[in-house]
C-alpha cells in the first residue's frame, strides 16, 4: 500500500483515497486528515471559539467512519461530505452543551438595491476602511458569514453550499445577496455619520 502512495506520479484523488480508506487501508486516514484537517478546523471555528471541541468532533467523526468503513457511501466530493458531517455533528454537540446558535434565517432583512461601491469610494483613508470593514462583518449573522466563507474562501457553488448547510439553493443566494446588502445599508449610515462630523 505504501508504495502505491509514494511511487504514484500524480497525487491520488480524494475519491481514490476515500476508496482505499473504505477497503481498510489505515494510511489513507492520515492522507485524508493531512488534506482536510485544517479546512475542517477552520470551518468549525465559524461555529465556536472552542478549538478543542471542534477537534473532538472531528476525531469522533473519523472514529465513526472507521467503525463502519466497509459500509460507507461514495460522496461526489469528499471535502463537501466531510464539511456537511462536521457541521451536523458540531451543531449537535453545541446544542447538547446548551449553547445558543443563531442559525435561523433572518427573513426580514431588507435588500438594498444601491451600489455599495459608490459609498466605499467616498472613504479614502485605508486604515479607517479596514476598521469599518471588520465592524460591518460583526453585524452579519453567523449564517451569513458561514455562507460567505463557503462561497468565497472554499470556492464552492451555491448548489454545494445548499447541500452542506441543508437549505435550498434559493436560500443560499438570498443569504449571499443579503450579506452584500447589509454592508451597503450600513455604509450609508456610516457615511451620513461621517459627513455630519466634517460639516
Amino acid at each position, binding site marked *: 500500500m505504501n508504495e502505491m502512495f509514494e511511487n504514484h506520479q500524480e497525487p491520488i484523488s480524494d475519491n481514490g483515497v476515500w476508496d482505499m480508506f473504505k477497503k481498510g487501508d489505515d494510511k489513507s486516514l492520515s492522507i485524508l486528515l*493531512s488534506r482536510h484537517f485544517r479546512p475542517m478546523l477552520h470551518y468549525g471555528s465559524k461555529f465556536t471559539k472552542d478549538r478543542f471541541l471542534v477537534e473532538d468532533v472531528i476525531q469522533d467523526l473519523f*472514529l465513526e467512519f472507521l*467503525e463502519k468503513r466497509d459500509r460507507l457511501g461514495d460522496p461526489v466530493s469528499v471535502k463537501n461530505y466531510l464539511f456537511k458531517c462536521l457541521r451536523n455533528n458540531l451543531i449537535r454537540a453545541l446544542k447538547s452543551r446548551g449553547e445558543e446558535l443563531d442559525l435561523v434565517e433572518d427573513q426580514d432583512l431588507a435588500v438594498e438595491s444601491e451600489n455599495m461601491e459608490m459609498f466605499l469610494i467616498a472613504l479614502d483613508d485605508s486604515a479607517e476602511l479596514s476598521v469599518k470593514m471588520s465592524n460591518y462583518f460583526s453585524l452579519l449573522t453567523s449564517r451569513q458569514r458561514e455562507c460567505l466563507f463557503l462561497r468565497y474562501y472554499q470556492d464552492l457553488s451555491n448548489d454545494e453550499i445548499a447541500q452542506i448547510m441543508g437549505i435550498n439553493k434559493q436560500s443560499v443566494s438570498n443569504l449571499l445577496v443579503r450579506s452584500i446588502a447589509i454592508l451597503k445599508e450600513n455604509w450609508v449610515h456610516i457615511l451620513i455619520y461621517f459627513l455630519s462630523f466634517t460639516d
Partner: protein
Amino acid sequence: MNNYNDFKSGDFIADPAFRAWVYGFKQQSDIDWEYIASQSHSVGKEMEIARLFLKNIEDKTIPVSDLYIERFSERILENHRKLSPSIKLSSRRWYEVSSRLFYMAAAIIMSFGIGWFYYTYSQKQSVNTDSISWAAPEQKLTSRVNRTKSPELVVLKDGSKITLQPNSTITYHEAFDGAERNVQLEGEAFFDVVKNPDRPFLVYFNDLTVRVLGTSFNIRSYGKEEGSRVTVKTGKVSVSANRETSPPQNHTDLSSSAIMLTANQEVFYKKAQGYFERSVASRTQIVDKTISENDFVFNETPLSTIFSKLDKAYGIPIIFDEQQIYGCSLTASLADEPLLEKLNLICRTMNGSYEVIDGQIVINIKSCRNSLQ
C-alpha cells in the same frame, strides 16, 4: 483576459484568481495584481475594498503543524483499536473471531500465570525482573493496577498522591523509605509529589525517567502507543532517556538527552526516533499566585504589558519584538480562557499570529496601524 480596469470591488470578489491571490492559495499568481492596482487610484481602491472584504471572510486560521495532524490521525487509529471488541465482532468473519478469542484466552491465562509468578516471588522476598532492575534485594514490591473505568487515587507513604488512570499500573517498594523515591509506571497517571529536596522522586516509564523534587505533573505512556507525553502542572520536571534498561547509578549526572520542563509545558517523546518535542500544554493554568484571571481584563493596555503579564502568569516565555508592537494597545476581556486561546484572541484582533517553538511562544504582529483599537 478580463479588463480589470473596469472592475468594481464586487467583480474582484467574484474573481477566483483574485481570491486565490488574496488568500495566498498559489505561490505565484499569473496576474500581476499589484501592477493593476498601481495603474489607477480608483481601481486600487476597489481592489483594497475587495481584499478587506475577503480577509474578513477568511477570519482567523489556526496554525497547525503537519506533525500535529499526523499525531491526531494516529490517536484516532489508537482509539479505534481500543474500542470494545464486541462492536467489531459483528463485522468480522468467524475464523477471525475465533483467532481473536484464542488470543484473548491466551492473554488471560498468561496474566494469571504472571500474577502467580509475582505472588510466589514476593513471598520469597526476592524480586528480580528485567523491568524493575532497581529493586534492591530484601525489598518488597507493591503493584497497583487500575482495572476499573475511572481514575483511582493512590497515596504513597511520603504523602505524594498518584491518580492512576484506567488500564495503568504503578510499582514501588512497599516501604518507600530509600534515598530515592522510585516508582515504575505503565499507562497514564497524574503525580502530585510532596516536596523533599533530600529524596528525589523518580518515575520510570517506557524508556524514560522523570526526576523531580516536589511538583505535579502527568505522564501518559501506554506501551502500545508510539511515544510518551509528560505534562507539567506546577514546578519543574526533568525528563531523560534511559540508555540502559536500568537507571544510571548517578542520577545527578543527567545525560545530554535530558530535558527540563516548567509549568504549563509538555514534552512528547517518540520512542522509535528517540527525540523530544517540547510544546505548550493545551490546558494551561496560572502558576503565579499573585495574578488571577480577573487581571486579564484590559482597557487600552499596551501589548507589551499584556505579553509580559501572560509570561509571568503562566511561566511560559513569550518572545516578541518591542519595536514591532510599539504603540499597540488592546481593550478586551481575556479572563477564564487557556493561554493559547488568550493568544488566539489577541493575535486575531491585531491581525497577527503566534508560533509555539520548543515550549516557547513567538509572537508575530506586523504593526497595529491598521487594526482595531
